[in-house]
């Protein structure tokens, strides 16, 4: 089931509508009628360089060229198409289909320079370009990190698929082991089988439920005889007389981690091994970003951009697609290309309007099709049999016959005349899915294609490989609104859905845990550095890697009976910046840390704020995280009692400079007469303490003296 189709209410009735198949049905019947309303504006005289000819790059180029800008696309490979060309095998996306769509895109006036790798943005601007869009893709395979992976015969999945797709002869031998559970792993397995391998085995560290590849892809692999070993991870590769030996460890699923998935944990003494001719590592890919770009990147080595505009830290340079998100779907890359086109046009003085109406058909006038629609089963595309697939790269899926397509479209409920249809908001590129399905049911295929074409320049490609991440199956009910402590969820009136303001969102997970969304539209995504600090400082279920403490601070006085950090002349001082419930960025945090550092505070070891300082003597924070917003950050440390007054003065000064709040706290040990030494100083300095607080009863053992 595609996630896009998961948004279809029919999935709870008699099977989701075959959205992808219907898209392909109309795309394959393209008469070009949609072009009659297609406009190209006069030249603006502006030149734009696009690096990468994948779905993001070509989409941006297409819309910007139509707005009158001069577009040059630089492609490092010998053929255009990016990951659609080198990452997707022919049996899923025949290259002649891709060529047709790229030719159509080029027809609006795009110059594609092949075999041209761009390594310097300065060079681009030196050539007179007014703006640049970086859509480099993510083509570098990630290393397994195990002994022996540099042996010949161990290759990465992305490189393997690239070579095969570009016509390089690859010998896979008889036995192939593939490590990974995503699309690249599955495609590598199918491809190896088609290249003549007799035994292909996928090894994945979690269970089938957690496998990133879709159920139908996994089933297709099994149908073709590909074996899948779940809950196993490679630990060593050795080579004996040109024979590779792969040693793996069995895994079991442990506790649920912050992503909501159970973490795989090795089972002691469960090692097993297998011989193979080739091992394909398909555990992930990262972008290959030239150092000379001098752009901000994340810890995942993706380009860092403004989420709303896709602007990088360099003026006139935008980035999108896999180079920003890491490997994602084609439709997401297209959506990024659209967003970049809007931003770049505005930057160059335009209004950023890229949409145009390619058909006058805008309305659904017959909400539900035939009376017996609830009894009709879903119609899927017919496929080559497993036997027909082996040994060749013929397209697996065969499309829909006209009668089947019309029947299938008439099963659609057109929820709320299409206005409240979940599928409408599931598409990242904004395709009006219920409308084009309705038009197919009416036999108006050209109009249906025009509706798709209004949002994407790759309808034929998407009719074959569309896997939407379904960011929103949101129906705009608003039930979630009060649960967000940051009020980051807002109404997008135009789209009639809710949107999360990415600047306000602190990744605390409240919306997900509230579990009030009737369509389960919230999706957890691990964030790249530096945005990852948001979750670490905001989601109480996220564990700080350094301290193993769930939550935001250290153990402080909670275990002081065992640790003995505070008391007897040493006062614990803390300021939780952003608390209660206001949130803060790290500029505010740095204001507090630098103020405390000046009066000699010794910052707490193992504290997440301390860990993110670049200089503990001055309290300076890592500049990469300064703009990140978090629920709160706890600055904590110790100070000799005689300096407590200075700390309070520093806190007062910091309080006048920040754009948020902090809650202040002090730790000491009571004397035998129950007096608390720091109390007099606090009173003298005008600190009005609450009548309540925390009290360690002293039951921890061994008890510190």
């Amino acid at each position, binding site marked *: 089931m595609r996630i896009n189709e998961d948004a279809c209410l029919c999935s709870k009735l008699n099977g989701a509508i075959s959205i992808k198949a219907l898209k392909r049905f109309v795309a394959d019947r393209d008469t070009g009628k949609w072009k009659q309303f297609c406009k190209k504006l006069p030249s603006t005289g502006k030149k734009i360089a696009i690096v990468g000819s994948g779905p993001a790059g070509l989409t941006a180029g297409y819309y910007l060229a139509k707005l009158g800008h001069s577009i040059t696309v630089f492609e490092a490979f010998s053929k255009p198409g990016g990951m659609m060309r080198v990452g997707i095998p022919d049996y899923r996306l025949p290259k002649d289909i891709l060529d047709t769509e790229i030719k159509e895109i080029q027809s609006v006036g795009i110059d594609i320079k092949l075999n041209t790798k761009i390594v310097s943005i300065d060079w681009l601007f030196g050539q007179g370009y007014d703006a640049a869009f970086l859509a480099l893709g993510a083509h570098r395979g990630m290393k397994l990190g195990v002994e022996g992976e540099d042996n010949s015969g161990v290759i990465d999945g992305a490189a393997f698929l690239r070579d095969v797709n570009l016509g390089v002869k690859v010998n896979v031998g008889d036995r192939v082991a593939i490590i990974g559970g995503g699309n690249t792993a599955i495609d590598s397995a199918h491809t190896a089988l088609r290249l003549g391998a007799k035994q292909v085995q996928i090894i994945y560290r979690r269970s089938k439920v957690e496998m990133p590849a879709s159920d139908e892809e996994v089933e297709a692999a099994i149908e073709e005889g590909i074996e899948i070993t779940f809950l196993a991870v490679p630990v060593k590769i050795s080579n004996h007389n040109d024979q590779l030996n792969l040693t793996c460890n069995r895994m079991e699923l442990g506790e649920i981690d912050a992503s909501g998935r159970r973490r795989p944990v090795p089972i002691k003494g469960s090692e097993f091994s297998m011989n193979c001719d080739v091992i394909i590592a398909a555990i992930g890919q990262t972008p290959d970003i030239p150092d000379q770009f001098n752009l901000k990147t994340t810890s995942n080595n993706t380009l860092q951009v403004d989420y709303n505009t896709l602007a990088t830290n360099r003026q006139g340079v935008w980035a999108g697609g896999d180079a920003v998100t890491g490997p994602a779907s084609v439709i997401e890359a297209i959506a990024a290309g659209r967003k970049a086109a809007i931003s770049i046009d505005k930057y160059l003085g335009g209004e950023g309007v890229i949409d145009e109406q390619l058909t006058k058909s805008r309305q659904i006038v017959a909400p539900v099709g035939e009376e017996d629609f609830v009894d009709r089963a879903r119609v899927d595309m017919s496929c080559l049999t497993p036997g027909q697939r082996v040994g060749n790269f013929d397209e697996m899926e065969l499309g829909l016959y006209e009668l089947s397509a019309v029947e299938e479209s008439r099963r659609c409920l057109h929820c709320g005349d299409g206005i409240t249809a979940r599928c409408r908001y599931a598409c990242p590129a904004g395709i009006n899915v219920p409308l084009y399905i309705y038009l197919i049911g009416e036999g108006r295929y050209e109009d249906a294609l025009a509706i798709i074409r209004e949002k994407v320049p790759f309808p034929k490609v998407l009719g074959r490989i569309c896997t939407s991440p379904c960011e929103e199956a949101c129906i705009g009910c608003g039930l979630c609104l*009060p649960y967000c402590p940051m009020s980051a969820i807002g109404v997008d009136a135009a789209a009639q859905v809710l949107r999360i303001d990415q600047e306000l969102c602190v990744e605390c997970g409240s919306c997900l845990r509230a579990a009030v969304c009737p369509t389960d539209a919230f999706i957890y995504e691990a964030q790249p550095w530096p945005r990852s600090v948001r979750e670490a400082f905001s989601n109480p279920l996220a564990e700080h890697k350094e301290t193993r403490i769930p939550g935001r601070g250290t153990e402080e006085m909670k275990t002081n009976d065992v640790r003995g950090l505070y008391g007897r002349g040493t006062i614990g001082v803390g300021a939780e910046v952003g608390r209660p419930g206001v949130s803060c960025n790290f500029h505010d945090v740095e204001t507090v840390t630098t103020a405390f550092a000046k009066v000699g505070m010794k910052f707490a070891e193992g504290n997440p704020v301390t860990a993110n300082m670049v200089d503990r003597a001055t309290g300076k924070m890592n500049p990469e995280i300064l703009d990140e917003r978090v629920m709160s950050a706890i600055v904590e440390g110790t100070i000799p009692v005689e300096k407590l007054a200075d700390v309070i003065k520093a806190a007062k000064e910091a309080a006048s400079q920040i754009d948020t709040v902090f809650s*202040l706290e002090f730790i000491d040990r009571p004397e035998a007469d129950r007096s608390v030494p720091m109390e007099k100083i606090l009173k003298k300095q005008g600190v009005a303490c609450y009548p309540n607080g925390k009290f360690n009863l002293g039951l921890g053992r061994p008890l510190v003296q």
Partner: protein
Amino acid sequence: MTHTLHRYGKVDTLNDDLVFLSMSAKGFANEKGSGEKMKKTLEIAQKHNPVNIGDMKTGNILAITVDEIMKKVVDTSIVHAVFANIEDAAAFAKEVKEAELGISLVISAPFDRAWKIADTAGCRGHTIEYSGGIWGKTEKLPAPEILEFTTMCGHGMISRYLVEDVITRVKAGTISAKGGSVEIGKQCCCGIYNPARGEKLLKALAAKK
């Protein structure tokens, strides 16, 4: 550093807001095997009428069952129990002390109550933490009556907007004060929200014009 500190409110409502947390010291001798001891702490808590129980790693009894919480307690857990009167709280502390588990036990309460509980349990009291209040742009804070709810979750997971929404619904009669308090408390993952106090606060607010 704070967690159960900084609970905001008038003393009369705080008097019945008694929060315990227990954890081992990471890297110290009492860490290994502490999961079982924390389970024992929660078992004892269940005998003394707790209004909430939770583990920071799994959730609280307003959202999941106590069995689920107990099952998942591990050495790195931080377990909590909340009581709505001093007798129950003191009886709990006394029994934990007698069980000699060797794991730190901290109470958040008005200090006079904390000392009473320590005396009843036979504890000397080891360390004290004061809240010095809220500093900075306090104009960004919600109204004091909202803060009484939101500060019952140290991690800020209780949204001021949810509290406002629930107050409106309680006033409109579409949800009971008890039900509204539980809905608010579910958002506090680790179980330090006091639903009994929340219910009282909601009733008082609903009675206001």
